[in-house]
């Protein structure tokens, strides 16, 4: 009997999924530090819901306006494209002074959910197909999805590389930033747009649970160590990528649900860093700050 093929032997099967998952994990992990520090942890869930409305609208446009065919309009009204567009548009809502607050987030989540069901009842496509298009499972990822996720990570990294200092200033002290000449709302919109882009792209390849988990867990794990801002973002991005990659490998190796395994790996980091932080505090050591 021939030996069972190893994980590496199956690279053609998992390559796209692994690359997309790690890219999503890196992006979500890094952004998660901002999400946690700005105390808007439920915004990612609401963004996913808003993106779902985009998918349903795409179905409606195709059925009632465009019909079958291939054109520029068809390409622009693809479910994935409209999901991304609506998610980014939601940044204008969440960036308002109270936009990221729990009430506004709750309203967005509920309104998004209701809109999906109401508009979904008008299309012939089953609502489960809509969910299937919006929420991936990280197991089967198309090459185009992989490149989309990598491109989104690149855009998000570039924006944060350029605007990092201004995001920090506007987040820490918006009034002073405004007095210094920065347009606070525009900066907040840009910051939230990076959240929305990364979350909707990641949800598409991983699913809602791991996308939420990878936003939250690596960031909270790193913040427990009380490191500086840049170090925290870099480390959380690393842990996010590692959680996604290791989670994918373990799920493949032991035949476990992929998204849940990624979340479980994230939980391990959270547990470890909390123990480490407690040991450091007991030992009287001051963690690096700065």
């Amino acid at each position, binding site marked *: 009997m021939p030996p069972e093929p190893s994980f590496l032997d199956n690279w053609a099967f998992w390559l796209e999924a692994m690359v997309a998952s790690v890219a999503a994990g890196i992006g979500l992990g890094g952004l998660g530090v901002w999400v946690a520090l700005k105390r808007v942890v439920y915004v990612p869930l609401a963004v996913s819901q808003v993106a779902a409305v985009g998918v349903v609208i795409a179905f409606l446009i195709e059925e009632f306006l465009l019909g079958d065919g291939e054109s520029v309009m068809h390409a622009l009204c693809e479910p994935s494209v409209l999901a991304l567009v609506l998610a980014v548009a939601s940044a204008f809502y969440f960036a308002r002074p109270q936009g990221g607050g729990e009430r506004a987030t709750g309203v967005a989540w509920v309104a998004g959910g209701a809109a999906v069901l109401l508009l979904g009842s008008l299309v012939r496509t089953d609502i489960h197909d809509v969910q299937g298009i919006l929420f991936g499972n990280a197991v089967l990822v198309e090459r185009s999805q992989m490149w989309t996720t990598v491109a989104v990570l690149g855009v998000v990294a570039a924006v944060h*590389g350029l*605007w990092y200092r*201004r995001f*920090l200033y506007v987040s820490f002290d918006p009034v002073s930033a*405004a*007095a*210094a*000449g920065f347009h606070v709302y525009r900066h907040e919109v840009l910051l939230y747009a990076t959240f929305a882009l990364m979350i909707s792209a990641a949800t598409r390849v991983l699913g809602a649970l791991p996308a939420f988990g990878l936003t939250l867990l690596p960031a909270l794990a790193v913040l427990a160590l*009380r490191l*500086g801002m840049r170090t925290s973002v870099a480390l959380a991005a690393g842990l996010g990528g590692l959680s996604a990659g290791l989670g994918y490998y373990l799920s493949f190796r032991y035949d476990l649900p992929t998204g849940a395994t990624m979340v479980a790996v994230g939980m391990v980091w959270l547990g470890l860093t909390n123990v480490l932080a407690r040991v450091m505090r007991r030992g009287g050591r001051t963690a690096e700050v700065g």
Partner: protein
Amino acid sequence: MTSAPTVSRPLVHARQAVIGYQSALVQPFDLTVCTGEFWAIIGPNGGGKTTLVRTLIGALKPVSGQVVRSPANLRVGYVPQRHNLQRGLPLTAADVVMLGRTPLWQLGRGPGNADRDAVLRALDRTGAREFAEHPFDSLSGGQQQRALVARALAAEAEVLALDEPTDNVDLTGEGELVELIAQLHREGLTILMVGHDIGPAVHHATHVCLVDRQRGRITAGPVAEVFDEARLSEVYGRPMSIEYGDDCVHVHVKGGTRAA
């Protein structure tokens, strides 16, 4: 009270300005802040002092009228009430001071040697060097205010605007902070200071701005012209008396206890 430098130029000029967030808080007013002046902005709580100072420094647009800053890119350092700061960000006091340099950089640029030197100078000038590497959130109220003043200095601000800087600062810290602000004014910095404690706010001031929301009025001018018992009594709705000490100003509610 200290005297302002003799040669001065207008920095902020409000022309028939109406302040407020969506609706008007007070009637249109004129006000000119010149270099080297120390403005104490006082009035009852909830009267619009914060709205006024934010409008003057350009963080808020006036509901109507004009607020002109000269030059247009006038550098203003603002020390907000601390509850307006986002808590929990992993920033040291030095990081906060460095944020003041951000407006001086082009997009994507980070701090260079000149920026680090400017931060160290600002920390030294405010006595904040000793806790520069401590997490900002772990500092006392007075230390946080010093770091925020240092941020304004690092920003090479021409105007330092402070919103109730002595709020929640202990007595020792309050005295030291007011003396620091007075010292910066003596060195030539223009000051706008909001204070609900009238005495400390007015003690070093050259000008006073009385915000009277109840009557929809702002009265502004040199201390000698504006700061008197009759006006204070009218604005606060209680009979007030002013007592000038050697190194302080006390304001009392007549027949009662000291108001500030």
